[in-house]
């Protein structure tokens, strides 16, 4: 998946520590997150015209904000620019920065909190879980917040009928997991199904 993320307008300028409007930002973030996790190029547009060639999903789904601040901040460093880190480091870093509980992290990653415990202790992790973990940390680190509690608040914040970032991640993760095979029939398919044609009128 080729994900290119430009968070222009979402990250406070250097030296700006206050959160101007966390709700509006979270709203924009939710839309950006959808695009980000869908693997498309995103440039979140607040006031300025969109970057040429990078038409944003947020342009279509989120009304422009009216705050003139926070433009032109540098894009976050993509994960592959980081020095190589162990899984344990990534997990502990994510938990510390997100303020999320082990259980909440497990839910976001589709595993139990015990699996997250195990990863934090250096336990083996498959490639897909590592990818999800890294993407989630990238999102958390890019939240316009000064500390873990603010990031946590932004993760759960809803505004104007937009789901929270937490729930968007959950849903995208679910839809990303492909075909359900364990119990492949829906209630609609199961309830009132006919055993064979002989029963049809």
């Amino acid at each position, binding site marked *: 998946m080729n994900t290119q993320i430009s968070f222009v307008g979402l990250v406070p300028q250097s030296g700006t520590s206050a959160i101007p409007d966390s709700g509006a930002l979270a709203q924009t973030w939710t839309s950006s997150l959808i695009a980000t996790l869908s693997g498309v190029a995103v440039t979140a547009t607040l006031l300025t015209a969109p970057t040429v060639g990078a038409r944003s999903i947020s342009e279509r789904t989120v009304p422009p904000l009216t705050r003139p601040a926070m433009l032109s901040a540098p894009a976050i460093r993509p994960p592959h620019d980081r020095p190589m880190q162990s899984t344990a480091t990534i997990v502990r870093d994510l938990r510390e920065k997100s303020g999320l509980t082990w259980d909440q992290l497990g839910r976001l990653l589709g595993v139990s909190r015990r699996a997250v415990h195990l990863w934090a202790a250096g336990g083996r992790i498959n490639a897909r879980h590592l990818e999800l973990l890294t993407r989630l940390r990238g999102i958390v680190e890019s939240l316009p917040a000064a500390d873990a509690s603010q990031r946590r608040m932004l993760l759960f914040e809803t505004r104007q009928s937009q789901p929270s970032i937490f729930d968007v991640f959950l849903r995208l993760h679910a839809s990303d997991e492909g075909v359900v095979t364990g*119990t492949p029939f829906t209630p609609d398919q199961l309830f009132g199904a006919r055993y064979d044609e002989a029963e049809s009128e």
Partner: protein
Amino acid sequence: MVYALVRTKSGRGAERTLSNAGSLGSVGPAPLSEDDLEIIASLRQGDIVKIDSLPILTCDSVRFHSTPHGAVLLTQTCDAVRREKLTVGLSPIVRLEGDIARNARNGKLLRYVHVPSAGSDVFADMSVIVTVDKARFLAASRTAGIDQTDDDEVRRFGRAVGRRFGRFPFPNEVVPWLRPLEVVVQGRHNKDSPEGAAMRDVVELRVEAVGGWQNPPYALTLCVIVERGVIPSFPTDDEPPCPHDLAVWLRSDNGNLRQTSTAIADRLAAERRGDPSSATVYWLWLSLAEAWAARCTPDLHKYSPEEAAEIQAAVDGIDADVVDESGFDLYRYRRSEQLDLDHLSPPPPI
């Protein structure tokens, strides 16, 4: 369209006429009597019907599969008893001995379903399943193959029938990765083995392909689902600290697990005898599951270079998750598959 079951003209004594291929297609208008309807209402899945053969369609004719011990009704009771249902499914009865019978009773041979009321050596052989008009055996003598008052026995029979057809087909190139677990699972029956003891606390092994089974490489998670209360609980969400000596024993400096599943299970058994609710037991369980996942490495020597390359490329890591049976949610259940693999060896000769 409404169908009604009608008796063939040769319905009575059908077990005697089944060997007459020419009569198979003769469906006459003779209505069912009250006695016939009563018989149909009494049909039960697992019933043994005394017929001497079952018809199998070949390229240009019908041949008859001899059933000297009779045949077993496979159709679910709720469908077998309906008067508008024209047909039922039957499989021949076979008698098995020794290891084959024991393996079949233990669910190791999916072809056979034990028919317990008929004896420990009596099985339905599902390598032959024949659809038969009910009217064909209305007059045949019938005995119960399973104890209909024993719900567990009734369900077990039905599930054994369904299992042969409902298992998830793991991709061929993934099976060699999971095969090493067979040794661990078989150790479950070794009462003297700590690893076998740990495996007896496991109610189910499931495999998730994170991202789905559509395209390799598959990122797999081995879900070790244990009985409630086996893994210690703690008052907060915080991870219980792993005792230093245990951490050093479990992992090398680079974080890799350095103990085998057998060694971890040995230590787990010893710790559980002391304090089964300790953080040590908690971490040993997590590590044991990880060690089982670590065992999942294919033996590529058994394959051609091309096959080996394909197998090697099929899996992008296997991790592990230990989950209490009360904590494995439906979301994960729907996206995971029960680990149910055929035995490697060829079928035993019958």
